């Protein structure tokens, strides 16, 4: 690699660092952006665990503890919040002209995307660790052991990045915070129409079971859950990682295309 190319790469890395640092500062300075994504899913976990515990008595329910069963859900909700916050941050940059200011520097578009996702990565890692710690503290057991817990964290962060890439894409495409926010209820519906709260084979309604079967969110949840209640389920893990990775690739590609349209600088 030539000296110039090396210097350029160093420049891009430093740009990513600067922009990711900015995203992290955003998360730290807007407590609502950090506290909500972390507290809300835990509250919902507590409510569901106490309210739906009787479900475990159904014949065929895969575990005796609804807490173990539902522990995967906060990771999904945390990912949604990270996507929402990241997307709204970016949309605000577009709306208030800050993106133009960035576009007028030698910043590369890739650095902008990476920096943006760096903030989501930070929120994702912090919240995933917290969910896991709280879950274990209130009595959840990780069937796959300590190694499984680590894989759980990696998978959770991967899923978080998949949603963050989607949030980034919507922000770049629509250029408005409202548009990003508009997708949030949709994702909640997707989460509720998945196997997040009930095992697929125990869902009685045909239409619900069909949607849950075709809903990619089901497989993300089931991958996370398998580590908690089953142990090492390679099939479930592979499906979960594959869907998250595919979403990352897809939405990253769409994002960089949308960014090119957005950064029309010559």
């Amino acid at each position, binding site marked *: 690699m030539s000296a110039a190319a090396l210097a350029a790469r160093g*420049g891009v890395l*430093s*740009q990513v660092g*600067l*922009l990711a640092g*900015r995203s992290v*500062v*955003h998360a730290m*300075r*807007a407590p609502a952006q950090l506290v909500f994504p972390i507290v809300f899913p835990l509250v919902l976990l507590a409510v569901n665990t106490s309210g739906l515990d009787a479900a475990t008595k159904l014949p065929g329910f895969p575990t005796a503890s609804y807490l173990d069963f539902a522990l995967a859900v906060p990771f999904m909700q945390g990912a949604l919040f990270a996507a929402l916050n990241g997307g709204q941050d970016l949309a605000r*940059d577009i709306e*208030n*002209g*800050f993106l*133009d*200011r*960035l*576009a*007028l*520097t*030698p*910043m590369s578009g890739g650095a902008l995307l990476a920096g943006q996702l760096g903030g989501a990565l930070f929120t994702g890692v912090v919240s995933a660790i917290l969910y896991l710690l709280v879950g274990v503290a209130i009595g959840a057991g990780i069937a796959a052991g300590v190694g499984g817990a680590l894989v759980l964290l990696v998978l959770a962060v991967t899923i978080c990045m998949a949603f963050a890439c989607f949030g980034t894409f919507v922000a770049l495409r629509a250029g408005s915070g409202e548009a990003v926010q508009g997708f949030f209820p949709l994702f909640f519906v997707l989460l509720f129409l998945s196997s997040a709260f009930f095992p697929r084979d125990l869902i009685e309604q045909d239409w619900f079971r069909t949607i849950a079967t075709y809903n990619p969110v089901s497989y993300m949840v089931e991958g996370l859950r398998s580590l908690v209640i089953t142990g090492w389920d390679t099939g479930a893990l592979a499906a979960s990682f594959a869907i998250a990775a595919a979403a990352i690739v897809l939405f990253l590609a769409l994002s960089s295309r949308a960014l090119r349209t957005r950064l*029309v*600088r*010559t």
Partner: protein
Amino acid sequence: MTDDRSIEVVGLVREFKGGVRAVDGIDLHVASGEIYGFLGPNGAGKSTTVKVLTTLLPPSAGRATVAGHDVAGAGAAVRAAIGVALQDVALDPMLTGREHMRLQGGLQGIPRAQRGPRGDELLERVGLIDAADRKSSTYSGGMKRRLDLALALLHGPRVLFLDEPTTGLDVQSRTSLWDEVARLAREEGTTVFLTTQYLEEADVLADRVGIIDRGTIVAEGTPAALKAQVSTPTVEVIPREPDDCAGACDALAPFGTPVAERSAGSVAVRLNTGADQLADIVRALDGADIAVAHLALHEPTLDDVFLAKTGRSLEGAGAGEPHAAAEPDREQATA
């Protein structure tokens, strides 16, 4: 080419969807170190021109070079040479002034060791050093503008674009921004391309003014030359004794055309030639034995120029219809 600070624009067109030509074939030249005022009402095409010249919008037709680089073909080189403060201040509400400088410095490729001192130097210069560690969301409108300007100047640009830099500012902030812009051109040789809808701003600050209306340049020149083109100054006299008005009128008559009185008890004429007749006017009044309470010379304003070229008054013209209240003889109190 590295010391080129000029702007050359030939036949520039920027068309938007639906065939709207926001910029409709403009030509202009801004010399190195010059302050060029781009004056026009809202919607005239000022901001679009700035966006094209700063590489944020590709031109639909025509050619433009900034600091020796083509805006369409060499965007990165143009961006490296220019500083830009767009119409809406572009700040991150969550970052402090100092963090803005560090982020901008890093993205501009300023070596890490120099970022802090260089940022502080500019914050100091725009009077924000005491507020450097406060989030920009707590800044007043004037402070935001000044931070925006400091960010635009961080990498030492050769050409500075300011899009309506004082819109919404109080008089004091406006004056201090003018001082800084004038200093940049004078001491650092920075070329400044400034858009404004304020006559006074163009008049005070700009070496040359281009008046844009509906996407085309309708007049261009130094403020004095433009004003001289359309009209000569007006002299206004208020005699100490109201009874002397008729006498004053007779004394002034040889020097120009009478115009409607500007204030109660005054007599005014638009001079035939320039202000060099003033001494003769004073002598004529003295000769007619008229005691004068007040004597003023009113220069024509750039609004008179705009009016003469477009048939509308600049103030409140917007992008709308010709101004109904624009009488041809309209006088401006602010000379």
